[in-house]
């Protein structure tokens, strides 16, 4: 990589004016921005984690260390609050099922749009991207009105939440997989086909395996987005049994938070860190394999 590009070996040293005109040349400025940005995003995470161990009810005044909000408190701790546990369960359930539904739909759509040139493909693609950039509140409210006033047989609850989260997550695999398809080009598929493979066989033996990393990335992203979603899950929830972690924390933030919210967040942070570490190792291995299989074009 050319770390020197742009700044360059000073053929003609840029004067002060040149530097000002090109702040990017000032690596120090960029470092300040980068470190500042990282601190800005990490500080609340640190705050949240630290105060999960607070002894008192406050999440802003340190009152001493305890595990009260994990195990100690008989009503509100993670260990003793059925509401909190069920919120975790509901969040995980929604995220997993959403990923399982949205990703295959999205991948199939991406493959289709990649090959299908003609009447309808533009429209379908447009619809997909439109759903991608529509503010979540609009999706959530229109679905809320749909299930409460038109599709009464669905009603509010887990099913409605899933329907909404799939709409929300559907475009991610499309965008990710299409980018990969464009990157790969058509030569592999054409080669397989030239060698006499049927389309279905080409798809199963060539296209999908080559897409595996992007499909995996899509699963992870859709899962993460659904897990963290608030607006859709909130608008379409029915009762305590369909409350998610985000909703729990929002409710707490509005009515009187306790460090129990922080505790549950910290536990989920720990879990996702472990998960991501494992995944990263797996991915690295599979990338190496992938690297052997697909020579650089």
């Amino acid at each position, binding site marked *: *990589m*050319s*770390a020197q*590009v*742009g700044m*360059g070996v000073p053929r003609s040293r840029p004067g002060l004016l*040149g530097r000002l*005109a*090109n*702040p*990017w*040349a000032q690596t120090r400025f*960029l470092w300040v*921005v*980068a470190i500042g940005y*990282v601190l800005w*995003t*990490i500080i*609340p*995470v640190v*705050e*949240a984690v630290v*105060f999960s161990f607070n002894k008192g009810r406050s*999440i*802003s005044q340190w009152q001493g260390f305890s595990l009260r909000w994990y195990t100690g408190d008989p009503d509100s701790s993670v260990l003793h609050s059925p509401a909190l546990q069920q919120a975790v369960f509901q969040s995980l359930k929604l995220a997993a099922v959403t990923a399982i539904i949205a990703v295959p*739909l999205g991948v*199939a759509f991406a493959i289709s*749009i990649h*090959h299908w040139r003609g009447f309808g*493909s533009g429209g379908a693609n447009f619809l997909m*991207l439109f*759903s*991608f950039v*529509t*503010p979540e*509140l*609009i999706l959530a*409210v*229109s679905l809320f*009105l*749909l299930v409460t*006033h*038109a599709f009464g047989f669905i009603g509010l609850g887990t099913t409605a939440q899933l329907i*909404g989260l*799939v*709409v929300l997550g*559907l475009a991610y695999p499309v965008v990710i997989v299409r980018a990969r398809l*464009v990157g790969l080009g058509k030569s592999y598929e054409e080669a397989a*086909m030239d060698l006499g493979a049927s*389309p279905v066989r080409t798809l199963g033996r060539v296209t999908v395996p080559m897409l595996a990393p992007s499909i995996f990335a899509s699963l992870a992203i859709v899962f993460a987005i659904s897990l*963290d979603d*608030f607006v859709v899950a909130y608008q379409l929830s029915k009762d305590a049994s369909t409350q998610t972690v985000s909703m729990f*924390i929002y409710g*707490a*933030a509005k009515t009187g938070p306790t460090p129990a919210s*922080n505790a549950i967040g910290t536990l*989920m*942070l720990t879990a*996702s860190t472990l998960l*991501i570490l494992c995944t990263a190792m797996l991915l690295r291995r599979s990338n190496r394999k992938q690297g052997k299989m697909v020579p650089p074009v």
Partner: protein
Amino acid sequence: MPRSRRAQRQAVLAERRAWSPRGFWQAFAAPATMYLLVFFVFPFYVVLAITFGGVTSILREPKPLWNPLEWRPPVMSFTLSNLVHSDGLYYQAFIHTILFVVIATGLCLLIGYPFAYFLARRAGRFRGLFLVLFFAPFWISYMLRMLAWISLLEDDGYINRFLTATGILSKPYLWLAGKPVTLILGLVYGYVPYMILPLFATLDRIHPSLLEAGRDLGGSPARTFFRVTLPQSRQAILAGFVVCGLPMFGDYFTQQLLANTSGTRMIANSVFDALSQPIFVARGAALILVLLVLLIPPILYYLRSTNRAAAEGLA
């Protein structure tokens, strides 16, 4: 460019490609398209039916009218007139929304571009570390980070303690008493990653040789940046504006949690409040429609330019 030859070859291949039966590829798009038609497009008809519908007699709940012939316009005209008249119910929220979103999106670019640029080409051996640090906050619930911000911003929270201890402020600033600055920073905090991602992806892809060429042709670093890097990332900036700015139009909880005064209300708050009051649900539905219509032009512009860029990319 051997373009025509390639095109010929493709045409031949396409000819030979009786391997894809009619409708084969279309069939793959069908489930997702159907899904969107039923659960994304159709709900807007319900929104229309409620906007132009009535209310039930006892609980004053919205009563959709399915037949467009029976539709009644009063709620929509109420909503529109309250949106455009300066003493209207939604006027202030509307102006705030545009103001806050524009400022917040601008700040997102100001913060996001240098960071993405840094990440893509200046982080060197720390690149992996910074990437991890960039993604790390996502591993904990966004709502919890919001809650953490609230705690930090309390009158006697750590932000004020830091600012007064260092002498930057002489007395604590009331961050949570309905300050637009808090709300805007909250929005930036929530959405700046969506600005950084497309920028990073693009800046990372700009081929070094292109920059070298710019330099070799005698361009100063500044010129290289403005003539090569910036134009190359134009599309990403546009994408950043769209994926980072548009969702802000639907954000209500940031305002509820960080500001909660009439002086900081956004249009999404009006929607949210209308929905919790049975007799006003139709107004909420009308606002949703208006919002949708207002956002269609930027969305269309974005989609068109994406298509064009994609077409240029293929050429």
